[in-house]
C-alpha cells in the first residue's frame, strides 16, 4: 500500500539560505505524523511545499503514490501557522464562504458548521465579527474551517499555539477522532507532550536536514539507555553488583525508596531483579524510556555540534 504522503529528497534554497536539504519523509495512511524541529529548521517550508504554496527546487512529493497536483491540494485541509480571517466579516458568513471555496454547497456547509459550532460551544459567535473575537477564539473557527470538508489529508502547522490547556485537550481529542474516522494527519509543533500523546510517527528536522524519523515507539527503543526504575520498601539502600549495574539516582520518600539504575551490556533486567529481590520488597519496576523532549534536545544539540 502506497503511503498517504511521501516526500523524496525535497530541497529548497531561499536566496542564500538552505531551507531544506534532501528531506524524505513517509506518512502512512490513517496515522498521525509529528513534524518536529527547532524554530527555523524548515518545518513550515516543508509544509508549504507539500501544499504547493512554495515551489521546491529539487525532489518529489507523492500523494498516494502519485505526484501531487493542484487538484489534490483542494482536498487537503491545511491550517497555516500564521492564520488570518477577514476581520470585518461575520464568523458564520466567513465560515460558509471558506467552506464553499473548498467545494461544499451552501446547505452542506451550514449543516456541518452547525455540528462543529455546537461541538466547540461557539454557536453564539455566529453573527459576531471576527475582529470581536480573541486570538484563541479565532483559531477555533479556523480549525473548524480546515476540517469541515472532511479532507483525507490534514496538515496543521502549530495547531496548539495560542490555546489554553482546556482547549488544547479538546483539540487533541478531535484530532484523534479525525484519525479514527480515516484521516491522515501531519502536524508540526513544539509541544512535546502532545507529540507523545498523539503521534504514531515523528520526523525531526534541524538546520534544513532530516535528522531522525520513524515510529515513535521504535525511536524510543532506539534511544533508550537501559535505565530501570525500581521503587521498593526496605530500611536501607540497595546494594548492587558492580560494574553490571550502576545506580544513577536515589530518592527516599514516604518510606519508599526509589533508584534509577543503568544496566550495562553484559547484564539484563532479569539479573537486576534477581539482585534486588532478596534485599527489598519491590513496589514497582519499569524501564525508563527517553521522552520525546529528551530525544529532541539530545539530537538537535548533537547535530548542531557536528556542523
Amino acid at each position, binding site marked *: 500500500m502506497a503511503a498517504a504522503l511521501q516526500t523524496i529528497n525535497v530541497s529548497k534554497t531561499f536566496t542564500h539560505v538552505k531551507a531544506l536539504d534532501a528531506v524524505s519523509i513517509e506518512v502512512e495512511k490513517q496515522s498521525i505524523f509529528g513534524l518536529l524541529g527547532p524554530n527555523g529548521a524548515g518545518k513550515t517550508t516543508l509544509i508549504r511545499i507539500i501544499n504547493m504554496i512554495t515551489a521546491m527546487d529539487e525532489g518529489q512529493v507523492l500523494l498516494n503514490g502519485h505526484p501531487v497536483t*493542484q487538484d489534490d491540494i483542494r482536498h487537503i485541509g491545511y491550517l497555516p501557522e500564521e*492564520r*488570518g480571517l*477577514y476581520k470585518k466579516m461575520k464568523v458564520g458568513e466567513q465560515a460558509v*464562504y471558506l467552506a464553499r471555496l*473548498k467545494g461544499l454547497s451552501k446547505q452542506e456547509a451550514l449543516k456541518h458548521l452547525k455540528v462543529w459550532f455546537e461541538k466547540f460551544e461557539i454557536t453564539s459567535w455566529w453573527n459576531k465579527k471576527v475582529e470581536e473575537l480573541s486570538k484563541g477564539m479565532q483559531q477555533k473557527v479556523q480549525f473548524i474551517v480546515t476540517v469541515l470538508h472532511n479532507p483525507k489529508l490534514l496538515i496543521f502547522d502549530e495547531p496548539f499555539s495560542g490555546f489554553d490547556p482546556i482547549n488544547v485537550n479538546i483539540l487533541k481529542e478531535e484530532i484523534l477522532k479525525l484519525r479514527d474516522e480515516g484521516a491522515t494527519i501531519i502536524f508540526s509543533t513544539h509541544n512535546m507532550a502532545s507529540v507523545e500523546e498523539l503521534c504514531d510517527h515523528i520526523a525531526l528536522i534541524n538546520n534544513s536536514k532530516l535528522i531522525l524519523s520513524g515510529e515513535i515507539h521504535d525511536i524510543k527503543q532506539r534511544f533508550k539507555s537501559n535505565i530501570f526504575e525500581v521503587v521498593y520498601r526496605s530500611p536501607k539502600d540497595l546494594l548492587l553488583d558492580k560494574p553490571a549495574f550502576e545506580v544513577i539516582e536515589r530518592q527516599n520518600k514516604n518510606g519508599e525508596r526509589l533508584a534509577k539504575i543503568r544496566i550495562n551490556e553484559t547484564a539484563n533486567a532479569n539479573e537486576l531483579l534477581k539482585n534486588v529481590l532478596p534485599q527489598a520488597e519491590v513496589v514497582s519496576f519499569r524501564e525508563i524510556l527517553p521522552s520525546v523532549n529528551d530525544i529532541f534536545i539530545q539530537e538537535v544539540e548533537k547535530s548542531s555540534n557536528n556542523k
Partner: protein
Amino acid sequence: MNKIGLIIQREYLTRVKKKSFIIMSILGPVLIAAMIILPALLSEWSQGEKKRVAVLDETGLFMGKFKNQDNLEFYPVYNDLNSEKETALYQRGDLLLYIPLTQLSLPTKAQLFSTKQPGLNVTVYIKSVMKNVIENEKLKAEGIDPEVIKSAKAQIDLATIRVDESGKEKKSFTEVEVGLAIFAGILIYFFIFMFGAQVLKGVMEEKQNRIVEVIISSVKPFQLMMGKIVGIALVGLTQFMLWILLTGFFLILFQTSAGSDFKESFSTLTEQNQMMSPGTADTTTIDSQKLAMVSEIINSIDLKAMVFSFIFYFLGGYLLYASLFAAIGGAVDHDADTQQFMLPVSIPLIFSVMMSSAIVNQPDSGMAFWLSMIPFTSPVTMMMRIPFGVPYWEIGLSAALLILGFIGTTWLAGKIYRTGILMYGQKVNYAVMWKWLRQRG
C-alpha cells in the same frame, strides 16, 4: 457555483453592504444635484425681497432711464438729499440713489445709500444703465448720433457646425463640450483611482492577515486576483449607476417641489448673467428662445454614446490599472512600501489629467490622438475627446488597444501576484519582480 463567482460575490457584497458605500452613493448625487441647483436657488434667495430705489437725480439726465426690474423698482424723488435720506431711506427703508449735479463734465459719480448691504444685482444694474447713458451723452457731445453707433455695432453669432463623414451637419456648442469633456475625464480618473485603491487595499489585507494561505489552498491565485478585481469593478459600476439614477431623481424631485419658481429663477439667473457682461448686447432675451437653445445643446451631445463610452473606458482603464495595483499589493509587505511602486504606475494617469486643457483646446492634435491610443492614458484622454466627436476608427482602435493593454497587464500582474502574495519578509524591488515574472509554472 464556481469559485471565481463565489469570490466575486463576496468582494461585491461586503463592499456594497458597507456604510461608506451607502453614504457615498447618496452623498455623490446630492452634491452633483446641488451643484446644478444651488446657483439658481441662491439667486432666487438673493432676489426674494423686492427692493425699491428712490432716485434723486440732480442732473436730470437719467429721467426714466432706470426701468423696473423683477425685484427692483425705481421711483424719482425731488427734495434735497438730507430730507430724502430722512423719508426714503429711514422712514420707508428704501435704497436711495443720489446723482449729484456736476458743473463742467458729465456726471460719472453717484452714491447709493442703503440701510442694508445692497445686492450685487442692484449695483450692477445701476452701473450698466449709467454707463450707457453717459456714453450716449458723450457721443452726442462729439456730434455722433448714438443710433449710428448702435447700428454699426454687430453681434457675431458664430455657430460651429460639424460635418460628419456622411455629410450630415450638426450645430456644436464648444463651451458645453469642454465642460462635459473635462467632467468625464476627471470622473474616469477619479473612478479608476478610487476603485483601483480598493483592489490594492483588499489584496494587502489578505496578505497581511495571512488568510491568503488558506484561500490559495482552495483556489488558484489568479482566480483570487480576478475575483477581487471583477467584484470591485461591479461595485464601481453599481456606484456609477446609482449616481446617475439618484442625481436624476433628486433633480426631478427638486423641480417638482420647487415647481415654476425654479424655472423662473433659472431664467432670471441667465438674464442676469448677460446683464453683468458689459452692456453690449440687448438684455431682453426671450425665454423660449433660450429654452430651445438649451434643448438643442442637449440634443447635440450624444448622451447615450457618452454613457456607454464612459462605462467602457472606466472598465478598460480600471482593469488595466487595478491589475497593476493588485500586483503591487501582492508584492509588498507593508503599506509604506507601496509608495515607490504606486508612483510610476499612476504617473501616466496623472499625466493624462494634467494634459486635459491642451487636449480640450485641440482635441484633434497629434498629442491628443496618441494619448488616446496608448492604453495607459486613453481612458481619460479619449473620454475628453469624445464630446467633440472622434472618428469611429479611432475609437475602435483605441478600444482594441485598451483591451489588449489590460489583457497584457493582467497577465503580468498575475505572475507577480502569484509569487508575491505568499512571499513574506523579502525586500521587494524591481529586480525581484523581474525574477518573479520570468519564473515558470
